[in-house]
């Protein structure tokens, strides 16, 4: 039986949980005892999903204190001798993983997006050169195998409910931190569509109803962009035009509403992770690039999806419908 540790980053619990899917891919389902470690946090989110939750309990350690966090994980490795340590590639994770791997004198693979088994070797796959090539990387050093895992790539689903045991860990090796958090402020939003993670984009199919896109953008904390058709008809400014004569964008999600997807428009999409297109013509060129094609009217789609998101938010926050 293998032993694997995942780091629960409070700033992104879901992505931390998804690391369990990577463990299954590495060793096969059920072949590893799973430990989740979290800092000054009960880790209730993984109750039933892992075998052990280790709560590092020491108020002196703050989230940004990577030195002491490394000290703790080093102590844990000495106690439990994990076969693998997986850390989500969040900002904290990307600082923690290299520090810890150096402390443990083990190799590290960053931003893993897939697990392969090649000739009996475990191969960790990651993008390089801005995602233009993929590299399969094997560990030749000693254990544990360490990796940081790209966010939102893996998805963990399990029906089984484990009997999770809780362990309280009181670190013995804490040093004074030289980093002090002064304050945090909300980010000012950039109005440049090139900086947007999610773009709600409208084309000829929405025309006069272009303003409806704002409703959906608001719900997804996204920005609105447009195809040339919309800009040429004066419904939107050229600042938000996507395509050859507009801007090249790289959002994670592009929702194409009533966009046909001419070659000139697609030129403007670079490294877009996911595309959802809504179109009355399911054979429009944009559809072949999409993860999901919704056949139908774009404005109706906006109304339905906005309603759905609002309702589910109410359910989640426990508000009466």
């Amino acid at each position, binding site marked *: 039986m293998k032993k694997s540790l995942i780091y629960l980053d409070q*700033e992104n619990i879901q*992505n931390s949980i998804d690391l369990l899917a990577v463990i299954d891919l590495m060793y096969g389902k059920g072949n590893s005892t799973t430990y989740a470690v979290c800092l000054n946090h009960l880790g209730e989110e993984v109750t039933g999903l892992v075998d052990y939750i280790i709560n590092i309990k020491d108020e002196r350690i703050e989230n*940004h204190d*990577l*030195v002491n966090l*490394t000290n703790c994980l080093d102590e844990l490795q000495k106690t439990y001798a994990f076969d693998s340590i997986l850390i989500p590639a969040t*900002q904290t994770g*990307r*600082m*923690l993983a*290299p*520090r810890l*791997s*150096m*402390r443990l*004198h083990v*190799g*590290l693979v*960053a*931003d893993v997006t897939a697990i392969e088994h*090649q000739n009996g070797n475990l*191969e960790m796959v990651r*993008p*390089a*050169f*801005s*995602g*233009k*090539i*993929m*590299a*399969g990387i*094997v560990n*030749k*050093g000693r254990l544990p195998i360490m990796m940081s895992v790209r*966010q939102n790539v893996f998805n963990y689903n399990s029906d089984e409910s484990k009997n999770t045991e809780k362990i309280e860990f009181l670190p013995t090796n804490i040093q004074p931190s*030289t*980093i*002090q958090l*002064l*304050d*945090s*402020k*909300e*980010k000012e939003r950039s109005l440049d569509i090139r900086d947007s993670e999610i773009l709600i984009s409208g084309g000829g199919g929405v025309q006069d109803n272009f303003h409806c896109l704002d409703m959906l953008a608001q719900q*997804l904390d996204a920005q609105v962009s447009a195809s040339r058709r919309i800009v040429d008809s004066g419904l939107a400014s050229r600042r938000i035009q996507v395509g050859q004569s507009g801007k090249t964008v790289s959002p994670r*999600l592009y929702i194409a509403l009533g966009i046909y997807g001419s070659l000139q428009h697609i030129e403007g999409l670079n490294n877009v992770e*996911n595309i*959802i297109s809504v179109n009355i013509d*399911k054979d429009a060129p944009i559809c072949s*690039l*999409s*993860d*999901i094609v*919704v*056949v*139908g009217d774009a404005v109706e789609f906006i109304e*339905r*999806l906005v309603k759905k998101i609002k309702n*589910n938010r109410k359910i989640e926050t426990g508000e009466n419908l």
Partner: protein
Amino acid sequence: MNIICLVKFVPDVDNFMYDYDRNVLVRENVKMILNPDDAAALAFALKVKDRHPSTFIEVVSMAPKSIIGQLEDLLRRNVDKATLISDKNYVGSDTYITSKILAKYLKAKSFDCILTGTHALDGDTSHVPAQLGELLSLAQLSNVIKIDESKFDGTQAVVDVDREKVISSYRVGLPAILSVQKESKYKLPHIKFKNLNLNVSANMTIVSNSDLNFDVNEVGIEGSLTKVSRTYPKKMEKKEHIVVNNDDEGIEVVYQFLKSKGYV
């Protein structure tokens, strides 16, 4: 104040050519450029030097010797010293070994702050700054988008860090490693016209393994703890897509997709 800037020269990936017949990236004749995040970090150091001319800036890079010309151009921008760590035995080192090599050089130096970039265009692992933090027993912060010049005095730095949803300010005791992002908008100045052909060779030092004395088995491909077993181009194939109708069922599919990817 002594500032060391660690810089890396990377292939200009945006101008990579792709050979669709052979299914490979054409890496020959690709221009090497100063990694944008590293350039921003160096640009900040030069701003500090403008304000306090006694500031000493050393640029350190591990690279092949073909990069000397580009390092000289940094010296012509008012950098005081450039150190090129270069040895054929170091070729193929992974981030673990690269950090060990850099750390061995840096341990012998005295400095108030090490500045680096956060991301690199080529590998983009962001490992080296954090690994150096461990090896040199220093605090390290990535994603720095602002360093308050007025408070940057050799004992502390007040920095703004982009933490995706929020911007956090931290006070960091120096020495420390601060890793800047190009979003900081610190811009490397052009070389002044009168300095275009300035002879700077006296300020260039080349460090090889005869200085750092690693056993050749501990470095390069041999010493690395990870190995690239294969590379392949990311397939630009058409996606297997789901087609749904614009009804409750279809909206449910879209919603679940958004949820699974963390968009809602």
